[in-house]
């Protein structure tokens, strides 16, 4: 089964390991993520100003491209997913805006396409039980802390993937992979998002609180679905002139842990680049 797939800019550049492992695990489960033949950046922020229709054009073009390929489009990047999903919901609720965008793009986006995160496909189409049966190298004893962040879950009335205050989808996935799930109180706290560009000190403080909480709960690894969370949580833990502190916690994509658990070869884990704390020692010799 092929699923039309929108990788987005970051997964094609600095977060290639997420793309690589995502495609590999989907293929191992009998789904091929088929990259849209034509795509562009989604804009990386959903416009919160109601008169900013310009910012809806790029994501609508993507939805139109996806519609030519099938009735749904899968995303991995939490932010691409957020932007595409909210654009889809917004245009479904606001027909005047829908018509205006179509008039501008001269494309007949119909609104038929569903935007799904790979996590939703795993939960709703594959199922946790079926996934657990495919695990050949269970992550037994690995203390993994699911970290959701913001944009995968909020706002609930437009995204609706999971409970925005008490989510479970990543917990359930990790359980299916055989890991020991570390439930920690900062799992839906903000990492600072794009503040990292202008106010890196603020996002660094937020991220350090999140990592410290995971550490207090004896997590060995933090698991995310967002390349910006991954960066914000890991970058402050990079090797500095003063060396390493030794209590760093790597932050990996859920697809990377899946690749390990499904017994895929190491190059499919996508861990050799894009990490400031190398997660591979956790899996060597297991």
């Amino acid at each position: 089964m092929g699923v039309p797939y929108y990788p987005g800019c970051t997964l094609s550049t600095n977060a290639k390991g997420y793309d690589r492992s995502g495609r590999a695990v989907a293929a191992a489960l009998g789904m091929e993520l088929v990259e849209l033949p034509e795509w562009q950046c989604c804009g990386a922020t959903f416009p919160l100003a109601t008169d900013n229709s310009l910012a809806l054009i790029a994501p609508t073009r993507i939805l139109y491209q996806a519609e030519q390929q099938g009735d749904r489009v899968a995303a991995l990047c939490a932010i691409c997913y957020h932007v595409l999903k909210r654009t889809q919901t917004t245009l479904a609720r606001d027909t005047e805006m829908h018509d205006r965008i179509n008039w501008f793009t001269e494309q007949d986006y119909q609104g038929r396409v569903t935007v799904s995160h790979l996590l939703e496909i795993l939960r709703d189409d594959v199922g946790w039980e079926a996934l657990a049966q495919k695990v050949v190298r269970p992550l037994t004893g690995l203390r993994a802390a699911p970290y959701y962040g913001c944009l995968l879950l909020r706002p609930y009335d437009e995204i609706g993937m999971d409970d925005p205050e008490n989510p479970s989808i990543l917990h359930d996935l990790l359980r299916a992979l055989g890991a020991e799930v570390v439930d920690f109180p900062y799992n839906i706290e903000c990492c600072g998002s794009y503040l990292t560009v202008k106010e890196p000190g603020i996002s660094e403080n937020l991220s350090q609180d999140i990592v410290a909480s995971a550490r207090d709960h004896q997590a060995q690894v933090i698991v995310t679905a967002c390349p910006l969370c991954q960066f914000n949580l890991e970058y402050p833990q990079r090797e500095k002139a003063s060396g390493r502190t030794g209590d760093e916690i790597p932050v990996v994509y859920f697809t990377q842990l899946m690749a390990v658990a499904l017994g895929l070869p190491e190059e499919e884990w996508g861990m050799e680049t894009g990490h400031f704390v190398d997660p591979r020692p956790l899996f060597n010799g297991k």
Partner: protein
Amino acid sequence: MREIISASRIHSDLVRNVEEISGEHLLACNQCGKCSAGCPVASVMDMLPSQVIRMAQLGMEDVLESNTIWICASCLTCVTRCPKGVNLPRMMEALREVSLRSGVTKLDLDSLPPELVRELPQLAIVGGFRKYMK
């Protein structure tokens, strides 16, 4: 601090612009403070998110000088918790837009450390451009 509250201020352009851009009614907020209690960046804001709304309700233009509107990370925690269904991040964006549309720029590209730019996820750079400049 002495502040004069007047009908003309409450019906000022600022109030109209913020309501129009955000699509929200400023007076829907009853100042319960729940947004400020849960805001992850409240500790570094010069004004709490609920105080920003209060100033905007009263048409106080000084609100545009607050660092709060630029520190808000659009994390959407407050909108999930507001008992009145107020979409505060939309109001924050409206205040940023009022400011940006008047010509203000908040990001100096030359000041970004090159090693950070090299490592930043592309979406952070695109998002930063969109949030801080026109």
